[in-house]
């Protein structure tokens, strides 16, 4: 029997209780001058070990997850996370190594990271890879910072504008701002390609670069990538590849071969490291020849059979450091294990079966009467359904469908993104789902559509069977309750 509700941990507390096996019992009085001493104990739980274990186990049961549910969250690549990746990344020697321990005591881990860099270079077709960014957005930051550093090194100081398609992920414009750049949006054509005329009009001596996802966030491959690259490069700008959708093209086409100058990869998407309820991610970056000197440090180098960290002394033009040590090493380990288990053929199968699943799901939903946003295009690893007709005719919008899907035991697809398609669901099944699972999802969508027509309140009131019903987000933002207070 699964938990449906769980008290707050603080409501399990009783004064004086604690998990005494977990800390030194010899009483110590910390020798702290009175003026620097804490007044009053912090509000931490007072529970037994079993109470804590039961509480957090029950909380876990309130979640949907890949291990328990189909999770077709578009642009997030919610594929199976093989258990071996976690088990072997948590070997005690790897887990207990201090990041500043001498390199002589870390040749094993350094070799792993070096080989990971090499494999990612091969997969992306880039000339150099730095593993240090801690998430996709930090990889983006590193990428745009390198573009800026490149122009600055050439004394090309006017180049501060980043071009972003209107369908781009929100992190793209936010990143450009963090790097001190301005943002220029260009439109997407009705067929899903970027409007090259607008691009031609947008580029100029102020152009630092363009940030692109390919396949794009609307789930189609940018067919005119060659022209696009030429326009941007001829104007003196660089091309940034947002690797959020790398799963779609693994082994089929490489960003380096498409002419991109810099790419970030979301290892927690394409290379199956866990999403962890919102991180940790890992946003390794790859660069073309001209950006090699600017890569973020540290990077693993090899002097024959010895491995060592390359730092500011080796790359004097580096954009610098992005984290306290060397990024999310434990995540990198999991990506390494995953890549070794897939091998060169398995990696190609990733894009093949992700694309097969996506196109199959799109074809079946279309046959069932759902409207695809780009019906004349080949789906990549994801595709968009627009529910504008359902919204118009029955008043049931994309959010209603999403919430009702939860009742049917499916995590909802991404809703209302990209912003330019009305009432949209962005659906990404990934390669690890079986045909049976996809068919069951189609059945649920058909059943929900029937409900929308006959009993729309079933959608508008959904979900009905989860730990909570639809939550009042306006109240959450207006009557802020961000911490528990004892009554």
């Amino acid at each position, binding site marked *: 029997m699964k938990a449906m509700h*769980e008290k707050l941990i603080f409501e399990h507390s009783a004064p004086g209780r*604690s*998990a005494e096996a*977990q800390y030194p019992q010899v009483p110590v009085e910390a020798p702290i001058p009175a*003026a*620097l*001493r804490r007044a009053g104990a*912090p509000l931490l739980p007072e529970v037994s070990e079993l109470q804590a*274990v039961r509480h*957090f186990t029950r*909380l876990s049961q*309130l*979640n949907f*997850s890949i291990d328990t549910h189909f999770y077709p969250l578009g642009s997030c690549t919610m594929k*199976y996370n093989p258990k071996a990746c976690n088990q072997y990344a948590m070997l005690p*020697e790897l887990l207990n190594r*201090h*990041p*500043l*321990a001498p390199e*002589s*005591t870390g040749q*094993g881990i350094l070799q792993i990271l070096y080989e990971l860099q090499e494999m990612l270079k091969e997969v992306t077709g880039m000339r150099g890879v730095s593993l240090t960014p*801690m998430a996709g957005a930090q990889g983006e930051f590193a990428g745009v910072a390198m573009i800026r550093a490149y122009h600055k090194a050439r004394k090309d100081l006017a180049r501060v504008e980043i071009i972003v398609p209107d369908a781009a992920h929100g*992190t793209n414009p*936010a990143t450009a701002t*963090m790097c*001190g750049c301005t943002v220029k949006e260009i439109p997407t054509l009705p067929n899903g390609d970027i409007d090259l005329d607008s691009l031609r009009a947008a580029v100029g001596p102020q152009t630092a670069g363009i940030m692109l996802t390919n396949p794009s966030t609307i789930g*189609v*491959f940018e067919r005119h990538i060659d022209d696009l690259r030429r326009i941007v490069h001829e104007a003196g700008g660089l091309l940034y590849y947002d690797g959020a959708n790398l799963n779609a093209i693994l082994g089929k086409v490489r960003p380096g*071969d498409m002419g991109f100058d810099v790419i970030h990869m979301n290892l927690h998407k394409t290379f199956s490291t*866990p*999403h*962890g*309820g919102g*991180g*940790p991610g890992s946003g390794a970056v790859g660069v073309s020849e001209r950006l090699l000197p600017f890569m973020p440090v540290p990077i693993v180098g090899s002097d024959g059979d010895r491995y060592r960290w390359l730092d500011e002394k080796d790359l004097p033009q580096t954009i610098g450091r992005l984290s*306290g*040590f060397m990024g999310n090493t*434990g995540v990198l380990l999991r990506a390494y294990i995953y890549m070794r288990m897939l*091998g*060169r053929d398995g*990696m190609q*199968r990733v*894009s093949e079966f992700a694309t*097969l699943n996506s*196109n199959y799901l799109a*074809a079946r939903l279309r046959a069932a009467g759902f409207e695809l946003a780009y019906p004349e295009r*080949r789906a990549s690893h994801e595709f968009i359904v627009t529910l504008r007709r359902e919204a118009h005719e029955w008043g049931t919008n994309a959010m209603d469908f*999403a*919430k009702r899907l939860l009742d049917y035991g499916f*995590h*909802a697809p991404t809703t209302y993104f990209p912003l330019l398609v009305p009432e949209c669901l962005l659906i990404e099944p990934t*390669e690890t789902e079986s045909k049976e699972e996809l068919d069951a999802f189609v059945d649920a969508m058909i059943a929900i559509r029937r409900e929308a027509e006959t009993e729309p309140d079933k959608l508008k009131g959904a979900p009905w069977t*989860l730990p*909570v019903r639809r*939550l009042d987000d306006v109240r959450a*933002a207006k009557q802020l309750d*961000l*911490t528990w207070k004892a009554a």
Partner: protein
Amino acid sequence: MPFIPHTEDDIRTMLEAIGAPDIDALFDEIPANLRAPGLPGVPPALNEMEVGRLLAGFATRDGRPLNFIGAGAYEHHIPSAVWAIVTRGEFYSAYTPYQAEASQGTLQLLYEYQTMMASLTALDISNASLYDGASGLAEACLMAVRANRKSKSQRILLPAALNPTYRDVVQVIAGNQNIAFELLPYDQKGGQTLVSALEPYSGQDITAVVLQQPNFFGTLEDADAATDWAHANNALLIGVVNPTSLAVLKPPGQWGRLGADIAVGDGQPLGVPLSSGGPYFGFMATRTEHVRQMPGRIIGRTLDLDGKPGFTLTLQAREQHIRRSKATSNICTNQGLLVTAATIYMSLLGARGLAQVAGTSMQRTQQLVDALTRVPGVRLAFDRPRFHEAVLLLDRPVKPVLEALARRGIVGGADISARYPSLGNALLVCATETRTLADIDTYAQALAETMRNSAAAA
């Protein structure tokens, strides 16, 4: 096919439904001249048994040396229950709780975490995490510029006794937005930031002052004086703190007359393994008045359609997916799983357990300092009260000594000579509750022999 469930029949049926002759046809929108000829540079696949053997080999090569480094990452006991629960698929393989009703477990846990961190820092509110302590401080500096509306200068004072890598990261992340960072010197005798160094800035427009407590040397700072100076000069005070220390040290919210404005730090000591540098997580807490300037995910408690309490992501209007180029930060994915570990860790230890860990670590470090400074050629750098780290000065370069110790299975500390040339041959050491008196003795003997041998060699 590893991790792919399709049978030949499935593939045939699916291609028929699509109306494509084969899988390759699904890539027909990619221009032919760009198609890759496969990935010959990637090695062939290994099965789970083989990959296990491979990883065990790497791990064995690295071994398990006895560690005495801190310098921003601390080896503490992690209760078995922590990672047994964290690696449950329901936490491990879920994503950012966009669908709140299907993510109440993660959301409630994050609300509990926010409560614990707010209380530990003695501030009003906490976010749901940032990447790590260093990048968290960069975000705090950017936040201070937004939050301090009285200041126009974008000038922020950083102590030289702040973790030098944090200084580097802050410069990289916040440096592109025209923020000027100026350095506050430390006292060569005590190792604490000189509050008198703030005096020349009195009356000037300063956006924020950063103070690390304990500082990079392990020395305890006069946080009250620095906080009061900042507020008297219309600057915000950003405290960089070690969460373990907050069980016993005055927390940022109690600094000075008004308390610090923002507290940040690395949450790694709370149940997160050293793991060669990450993943860790950054925490950030502040006063309610600054909540809309805070970066990162924030969880709120609200009511559902039936009036029942539940949890959801809130104040999303600050974030990149809504505000795009005007967002408070580009952060999206943060470090949820590590926060899960920290929340379970804090629940198991409680205030008493955390204070015992802090107190025992202080005691062990004192014992380590006593043992190592008895070795000829080793002396203590600073005489002020400290937490669980100390700087030792050697009569010779540190690096060869550390290498000799490493050959004996001891990771003897962090060589900070290059970052602090005025100190000379400086070694930063740390002992937590995980080091025994026997460990300390082993280190002291090995150091004595190493020093003797290298003296003899010289």
